[in-house]
């Protein structure tokens, strides 16, 4: 898949495909990351945009202050968002269901307020983070970013898949099914939830880290975007939240549809499409595309 992706960066002439592809792949990472806590453990995180933005701003700061290269930006962005995930998890994972969801939403608001008022990163005006001129091995930098995101997408799916089939993943599933029963069966529920929140945060931060280079002008309103928060939830739900394939399918289908709609219809209709699809799936196929396919094949 990585080879195919690289071949595409050489073979396809139109740059637009790489912009669109970057966005779709970014949603593969975000949806997969969200699903580790939301799908496997059943804790709905409404604050994905906050984690994504922590990754993006950490990367921007690393780049501007230290001149860090892209891999360091991604690593730093992921770690910073992971730390936030751990801290937020420690405070919020003792509460459940809708209360946890509200707490994560509040977290995103807090992070945005800090960024809005932080002069070093330009506050609400934003800040310029220009990518290097040369992209070694690629004909231009957006293609390198596309390939980077492909690597992150494949990497996060590999991580999610191995979590799902591990003892850790089975423990998370037990928590999702019944937390008291899990605890009584010996599952260290708080520790597992913290691990899931941290891992989810790391991947979300990594998804956001190349974003400054992608947009060149990083500013809060597009970084803390509603689209990120909504898509990170909607994609796994539409794809199917209990397996690694669900968020991938959801991100490809929904992300792809959004990109096509942006070009052919209107860029503001994006979220409307997501909303309608989400309502449809919640009513008619609560287990998502994966669940629907399983039911039809049986």
């Amino acid at each position, binding site marked *: 898949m990585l080879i195919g992706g690289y071949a595409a960066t050489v073979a396809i002439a139109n740059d637009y495909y790489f912009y669109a592809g970057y966005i779709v792949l970014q949603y593969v990472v975000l949806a997969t990351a969200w699903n580790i806590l939301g799908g496997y453990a059943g804790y709905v995180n409404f604050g994905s945009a906050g984690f994504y933005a922590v990754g993006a701003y950490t990367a921007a700061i690393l780049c501007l202050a230290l001149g860090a290269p892209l891999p360091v930006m991604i690593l730093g962005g992921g770690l910073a968002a992971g730390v936030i995930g751990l801290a937020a998890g420690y405070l919020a994972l003792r509460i459940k269901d809708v209360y946890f969801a509200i707490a994560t939403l509040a977290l995103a608001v807090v992070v945005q307020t800090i960024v809005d008022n932080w002069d070093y990163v330009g506050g609400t005006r934003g800040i310029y983070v220009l990518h290097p001129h040369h992209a070694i091995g690629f004909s231009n930098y957006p293609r390198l970013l596309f390939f980077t995101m492909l690597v992150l997408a494949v990497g996060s799916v590999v991580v999610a898949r191995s979590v799902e089939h591990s003892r850790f993943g*089975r423990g998370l599933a*037990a928590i999702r099914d019944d937390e008291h029963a899990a*605890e009584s069966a010996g599952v260290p529920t708080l520790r597992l939830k913290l691990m899931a929140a941290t891992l989810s945060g790391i991947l979300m931060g990594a998804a956001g880290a190349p974003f400054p280079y992608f947009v060149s002008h990083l500013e809060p309103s597009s970084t803390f975007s509603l689209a990120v928060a909504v898509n990170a939830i909607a994609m796994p739900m539409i794809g199917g939240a209990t397996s690694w394939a669900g968020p991938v399918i959801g991100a490809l289908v929904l992300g792809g549809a959004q990109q096509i709609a942006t070009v052919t219809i209107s860029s503001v209709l994006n979220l409307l499409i997501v909303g309608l699809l989400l309502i449809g799936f919640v009513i008619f196929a609560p287990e998502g595309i994966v669940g629907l396919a399983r039911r039809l094949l049986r």
Partner: protein
Amino acid sequence: MTAPLLRVANLSKRFGGFVALNDVSLEVADGERLGVIGPNGAGKSTLVNCVAGLLRPDAGRVVFGDKDITALPAHRRARLGIARSFQLPRPFRSMTLEENLAISRDYAAREATDARALLSQLGLGAKVQSLPRDLTQIELRKLELARALAARPRLVIADEVMAGLSHGEVDEMMGVLLALNQGGITIMMIEHIMRAVMRFSQRIIVLDAGRKIADGAPVEIVRNEAVERAYLGA
């Protein structure tokens, strides 16, 4: 006499103004079959939750073996060998029966456990790959018990495993519990069905309004006046 397996000392638990447990002490010997009875609201479930770790008592101590476990979270107690079933079955609904057992086996058991053999032993051998939603009431209760046993416990707290079962099913469940006890597992049975608890238990503890009002052999409990008052309100 050897040291008790479980010792509960002066346990108290309040919920707001309601005193669920009031200075309750009890001991369970290794290998014993203990029954715990009492009217609704007597504090039985609170006692179970304080011993198993889902609730922290306001006062008092819980000692298991030679270890004070009062401050330990439930999953640590499960690893030490305390397993419980839930009054209302709480299976892991997305998992097959075998996977249900794998959770307590992988997370709590100190030694290897054969989940399939355990399920067969409880008469669920044909349903190893079924999901909990395909089970009947008695099968769900057996699954509760099987999951508890997959942890290879030293003490099993059976919280109303017989409620809602038919006469024949009660006998069947009792046979299962007696066989486990023969195998060396200490059993604390919380039960409303008198016929069962009287026959099963070597010793019975009676709770009423958060207090322990009686502790003795079944024959003594039947004749106990305080117990009669608690149940008949006379």
